[in-house]
């Protein structure tokens, strides 16, 4: 049975019709295209897709925002706000990138001392 290969390879996608309120934890790549209200705790690559709308405190490893996020984002490795992405909240990560065309209101706190270690851990995991 190949039940163990599919979700792991692709990660999970929360589709556009999904609405979730509460606490979400995951340890696999995750793409959110739906609406999430609450908290997200994540230990791998988290992407808020273009249709994604998240009103939550986010804790992740690598966070990419192409949709809308209202809330603070904390990442162990990096946070990227893509073109078209909207973020209202503070960002705390060793590496932060905001692409031209992104909409961002908030503080950035970069703890660069963690940068090397965070990256190393990421390669280890892969």
């Amino acid at each position: 049975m190949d039940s163990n290969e599919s979700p792991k390879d692709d990660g999970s996608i929360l589709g556009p019709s999904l609405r979730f309120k509460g606490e979400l934890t995951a340890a696999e790549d995750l793409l959110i295209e739906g609406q999430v209200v609450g908290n997200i705790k994540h230990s791998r690559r988290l992407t808020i897709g273009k249709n994604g709308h998240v009103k939550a405190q986010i804790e992740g490893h690598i966070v990419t925002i192409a949709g809308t996020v209202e809330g603070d984002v904390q990442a162990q490795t990096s946070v990227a706000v893509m073109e078209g992405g909207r973020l209202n909240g503070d960002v705390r990560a060793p590496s932060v990138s905001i692409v031209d065309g992104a909409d961002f209101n908030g503080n950035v706190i970069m703890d660069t001392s963690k940068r090397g270690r965070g990256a190393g851990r990421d390669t280890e995991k892969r």
Partner: protein
Amino acid sequence: MARNIMSVFGPNGRAPGAENPAAAEAAPGAAAVAPKQGAALALMTLGKTLVFKGEISADEDLVLFGRVEGSITHTGSVTIALGGVVTGNVHARTITIRGTVEGDVEATESATVAPSAVLNGDIVAPRVSIVDGAEFNGCVKMPPRAAAEAKKVVKAPASAPAPESKAPLSDPEAARVLGERSEP
């Protein structure tokens, strides 16, 4: 990166038979095979490590490998895959259980309890099948089919996604989020 995201939602075909519960029943592995092609809009897979605490609602067909602590309100088909655990009530059109459910299950069309399933709770559905080998403690209520059909007919015009989709997130906060989203 953005390109990747787009490709996930590109016009890939629907997983053939993914929306057909009978096909999934025929091959126990079907639910697991589907996600790759079905990663398009039609089918949503919630992976093993996902833990939801709270309310979920959705319209896309859903295959759950992870854990949900709370309720699921769905307008399509929900499959709790082997390894999936739900602690809470499940409402959907068709429900297939291969994993564990602690809570009541209410399907407007049919509910299937597969041999690998553990269900502690009641089932309400016009069509119910419990396959030999399944663990089930609870009661089954089958609303008369005629009544169910009549209900469907009455409900059909109103079943445009909008009103139904709002019901599960009645909380003002969620309503605000939805409101904001639809404005721009």
